[in-house]
Structures are given as structure tokens and as C-alpha cells.
């Protein structure tokens, strides 16, 4: 049967070439499309994590629900000691956030002032690389502020501004700061409302020694993030809670899911067209071969043997097209993962979604390629069901008389 199928493939060139090419192009396109879609989503998430969020954060249990100074972590060092013992952690640091009013000569604005260790922060976030003017590692009462916030307050480098808020004992905390550096991460809300102060000075003003709003962690391997988070969870006290980036960035994770769904829906429509084209071509071809199947049946071939011939034909065509598609599509996906496409200005357009780079890489993943081509393969096999059923409806005599 197999030899007969090979012979048929070469004999019915038109149908074979059409099926081969459609399968090849759709599989290649699917591999490339999915790799670009996954690549851009992965980049979006990685960028957002890299900018400020980190991959894991530790909070006092009710901080994220209740907020306020009552729910701070009051013993940073104890948590740091636990983190030192866990493998796979790349870097960590603590942050103390407070909210208050910043006032320049003419303007006031509610801001988030965060006390950070600038050296450790440089290892965990993109704040240092986001420097626009002045200095990053500022000392004493120097502020490192979002560029958009500085514009809103109408101040530039070396200008003074006052800040009024609460210390962590809820007493009044106020000081005059000097603007020493500005940053732009591309995340508008963040750049429009955030300022950073070196931890030593912050602790003196807000009485936050050895306390923090949360501890932020980066891991060496993002794939092991959840495992490391569970290890941390076991090693720290019950009054602390560990959040992974999936918990922290739920809206972005949802956005990526929705975008993927729409991507797959558009691809599904495309595959429907391909499926019916292959089905119609296959059906026309098989209809024209009914007489041939009649002769084969009359010389003793059973229906199952005819089915085998048709299945072998589609299997050979599909598998050969898919193998070449894997080689071509996979190579393209791999190439663009290493050498991403650069689209000038894309980061400006999508900055609100955490895009901070103009590059659009692919995501080369063998498993994804495998399920992509498996889907194409399944569709091609499905396209044979009706033609097989159609051929089976003929008796040998009817088939031989078929015109």
C-alpha cells in the first residue's frame, strides 16, 4: 500500500504540490507567528519585572490589603539571613515606601517617596539605567525623581522642594530635599509620582531602621521562580507572605493572556481556510479517482486497504512538509531570538504596557514548535475523513461506472 501511495503522490502532482505547499507554508507561518507572539509577551513581562518589580516580593501578611505602617516588615535582617541560605537567588534588597506631599515653589503633588539602598537597587532594577539627568547614587537629602514628576513640580537639578508625610511612628515627617537626579523608565504613572531617597537618610527621617514595606528579590533562572518562592515561603515566618511576579502583575499577565487568545483566534481563522482548501483539493482529487478505487476493489482490495493508501498519501505529504517547515520556521525563530528585530519608536508607543526596548525578539521553544506542527498535522488528517467516507459509499461496480 505504501508503494502505491508513493506512486500516487507522484502521479497526482497537482494535488500533491498544493497539499505540500499549503501544509509547509501554514506550518512555517504558525511557528514564526507563535514564536514572535510569545517572544514579545516574554519581553514585555521581563521588561516590566526588570524595571522595578523583581521576580519575587516579600510582604508582611496584610500589607497589600490593609496598607500602612502597621504592616511593615520590622526585622529585615532576619529575612535577609533566611534568603542567604536559599540557592538560586541572584540579588535582593528592601524598600520602604511612604506617601506625602511634595511642594516646590509653585506646585504641589502627592508622591510616593521610597527609601532604597542605591547600590543594591542597581543590581535588582533598571532605576540606574533609567537615569536621564544628574546622578543616580545620591546621598544625604538628595532626591532621585521621575522625570515627569520633576516636570509636574516644575523643578530641575539642584532645585529644592519640601516633603511632608508621616514617619513610621505616625509622627510628622518633613524635610527639604534637593533634586540631584531624574529618571525615566517609560512607565508613565511610575515616572509621574515616584522619588527615591538613599536609605540611610530616609531611615533617619522616617525612623525606619531595619524595617521595610517589602523585600524584592531577583532569581537567576525565571523558570525556577515559583520553586524558589516556595522555598522562601517555608524559611520565613508565618506572618510574612511571598508573592511571585504572576501575583504582583496580574493585570499584565491577564493582558498577555487576552492578547494570546486574540492571536490564536486570528490564526484559527487562517487555519480554517487552509483546512478547507486542503479538504476541497483532496476531495476533488479523490472524486476523480473513484473509478480507480473501483478497479482496486474489484481485484480484491478491501475498503480498509483503500483507506490505508489515502492515509499514507496524506501522511507522506504532511510529514515531509512539516519536517521542512520545522527546519525553516525553527531556524527563523532561533535567528530572531538571538538577533531581535528592531522597530524604532515601539517603546514610546507601548510604554504604558512596560515596553522599554525597541527590539522584538522571538521565543525559540522546541515544545511550542512541536505542538504548532502537531496541530497542522491533525488538521490535515482530519481533512481526509470525509473523502474516505465518500469513497466507502461506492460498491466496486458503482465505482467502476463512476464518471
Amino acid at each position: 500500500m505504501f508503494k502505491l501511495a508513493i506512486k500516487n503522490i507522484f502521479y497526482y502532482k497537482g494535488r500533491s504540490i498544493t497539499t505540500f505547499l499549503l501544509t509547509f507554508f501554514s506550518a512555517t507561518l504558525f511557528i514564526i507567528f507563535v514564536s514572535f507572539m510569545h517572544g514579545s509577551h516574554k519581553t514585555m513581562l521581563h521588561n516590566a519585572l526588570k524595571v522595578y518589580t523583581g521576580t519575587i516580593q516579600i510582604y508582611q501578611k496584610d500589607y497589600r490589603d490593609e496598607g500602612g505602617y502597621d504592616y511593615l516588615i520590622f526585622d529585615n535582617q532576619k529575612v535577609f539571613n533566611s534568603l542567604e541560605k536559599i540557592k538560586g537567588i541572584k540579588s535582593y534588597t528592601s524598600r520602604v515606601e511612604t506617601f506625602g506631599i511634595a511642594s516646590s515653589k509653585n506646585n504641589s503633588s502627592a508622591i510616593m517617596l521610597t527609601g532604597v539602598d542605591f547600590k543594591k537597587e542597581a543590581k535588582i532594577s533598571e532605576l540606574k539605567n533609567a537615569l536621564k539627568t544628574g546622578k543616580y547614587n545620591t546621598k544625604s537629602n538628595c532626591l532621585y525623581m521621575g522625570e515627569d514628576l520633576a516636570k509636574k513640580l516644575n523643578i530641575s537639578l539642584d532645585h529644592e522642594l519640601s516633603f511632608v508625610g508621616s514617619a513610621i511612628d505616625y509622627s510628622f515627617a518633613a524635610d527639604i530635599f534637593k533634586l540631584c537626579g531624574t529618571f525615566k523608565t517609560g512607565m508613565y504613572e511610575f515616572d509621574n509620582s515616584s522619588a527615591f531617597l538613599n536609605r540611610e537618610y530616609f531611615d533617619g527621617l522616617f525612623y525606619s531602621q531595619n524595617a521595610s514595606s517589602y523585600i524584592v528579590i531577583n532569581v537567576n533562572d525565571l523558570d525556577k521562580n515559583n520553586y524558589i518562592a516556595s522555598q522562601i515561603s517555608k524559611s520565613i515566618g508565618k506572618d510574612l507572605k511571598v508573592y511571585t511576579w504572576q501575583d504582583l502583575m496580574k493585570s499584565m499577565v491577564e493582558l498577555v493572556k487576552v492578547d494570546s487568545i486574540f492571536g490564536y483566534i486570528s490564526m484559527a481563522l487562517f487555519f480554517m481556510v487552509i483546512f478547507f482548501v486542503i479538504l476541497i483539493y483532496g476531495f476533488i482529487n479523490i472524486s476523480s479517482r473513484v473509478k480507480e478505487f473501483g478497479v482496486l476493489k474489484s481485484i480484491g482490495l478491501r475498503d480498509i486497504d483503500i483507506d490505508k493508501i489515502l492515509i499514507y498519501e496524506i501522511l507522506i505529504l504532511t510529514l515531509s512538509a512539516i519536517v521542512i517547515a520545522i527546519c525553516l520556521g525553527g531556524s527563523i525563530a532561533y535567528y530572531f531570538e538571538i538577533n531581535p528585530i528592531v522597530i524604532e519608536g515601539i517603546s514610546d508607543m507601548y510604554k504604558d504596557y512596560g515596553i522599554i526596548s525597541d527590539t522584538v525578539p522571538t521565543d525559540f521553544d522546541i515544545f511550542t514548535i512541536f505542538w504548532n506542527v502537531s496541530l497542522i498535522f491533525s488538521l490535515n488528517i482530519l481533512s481526509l475523513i470525509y473523502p474516505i467516507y465518500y469513497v466507502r459509499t461506492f460498491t466496486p461496480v458503482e465505482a467502476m461506472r463512476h464518471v
Partner: protein
Amino acid sequence: MKKLLIILTLALTLSANEASQIIKKLDNNMRGKDVYMKISMSIKSLRHERTMKMQTWAKGSKKSFIKVLYPPKDKGITFLSLNNEMWNYIPKIERTIKIPPSMMLQNWMGSDISNDDMVKQSSLVDDYNPKIIKKDAKLVTIELDAKDDAAVVWGKIVSVINTTHYTNVKDTFYDEDGNAVRVFTYAKVKKFGKYYLPTIWTIKPLNKKNNLTTMTIEDVVYDKGISDKYFRKSALKRFSR
């Protein structure tokens, strides 16, 4: 049917008028023509407990001035509310800061009362429509719904008022979605001249089980003829000392 409608309309109008009268008398007890108070405030939260003392001067609902006396670290901090605007002077940095309207709902110095409560910008008489919902002897429960055009932070206040001397017993504050947010309870009513005022106010935020703020009014002087000097921006620094 017509008669019934007329009686119903008349009853509603009379009820609204009565509610307005009660609220006006209550507001008059709280504000007088002008009022000076010395207040002690105890603030408790999950991990902290602190006491503050302050003096306040107020004239009507548009002018008020506050000076913090205790703790020593915060002594001399002053607040001025004038025609729906609020300023704050901090002696440590010698700066006057305008508090944006968006921050009027923020907690005042770590307590469970807001900036708006401290300066009493919003007026029960001008900003809310009162309606009697329950009468129990001398205790009248009035629902105050925010007027559509009023710049107030609460959607609704349900106030229990003792009509013996027109003083508050309990206020429940609701947000715009109708959720109860906090409860004020009042105790120890005292007479100051011709006015009656509860001297212990307890504030319980309903979303923070461990928080409690208690205000004790230690001294009150009504209708003293407070000078307008307190209600100028220059007063922030001048009376800070």
C-alpha cells in the same frame, strides 16, 4: 387619592423641615458664632499608640486654624483652612505647604480622622439633604445624603441626635457606594455657655479592626470674638511659635 397624596407630600415636607431644624441646631452647638477648643487626641493602631494635643480656632464653616502643641517633635505645626483651601506650616523646614483638595480625605497625622474632619470644611447644613428615618423618644436618627453639587467626601451620613440639647450620639459615615466606612460615637455632653457639646469623641474605622482614635475636648470657649488674624496665611507662621 388626591387627599392622600397631599397629606403624604405635606408630611414629607414637614419631616424634611424638622430634620433641617435639628441639623441646624446641632451645627450651631458645634460651631457657635466662633469657637476655640483645646483637644487631646489618642491614636491607637495595631503597633502604635500616641497622644497629641492641639488648639483650634474656627469661625463658621469656612475658616479654621489648628496648632499642634504636643508631642514636642510636632509642636508648632499649624493648619489653616480658608474658603475650601487648606495650608500647612511646618516649623522644622519653615515652609508653608498647600494641601491639594485630592488629599482632604487622607488621614490627619496618622489618626482615623481626615484633613476634612479637622478643618470641618464640609457643612452638614449646606452640603447634605437631611431626612428623619427614626424617632425614639429624644433620640432622632437622621440620614444626610450628599447634595449633587456638594464637594464632600461622604456619600451619606446617618446621624443619631439627642434632641434634649441637640448633640450628636453616633454618626455612621458611608462612602459613595453606600458602604459604611467609620463610626463616630460621642459621650460626656457638657454645657459651655449656652451651647452643649459632647467632650469625648471616639472614631472607629470599620475597615481597620485594630485602629481607634479618641478625641477629648479639654477646653471650649464659644463666641469669644476670635480675631480674623488667625485666618490669614501669615498666621500659619506667626502663631506657630
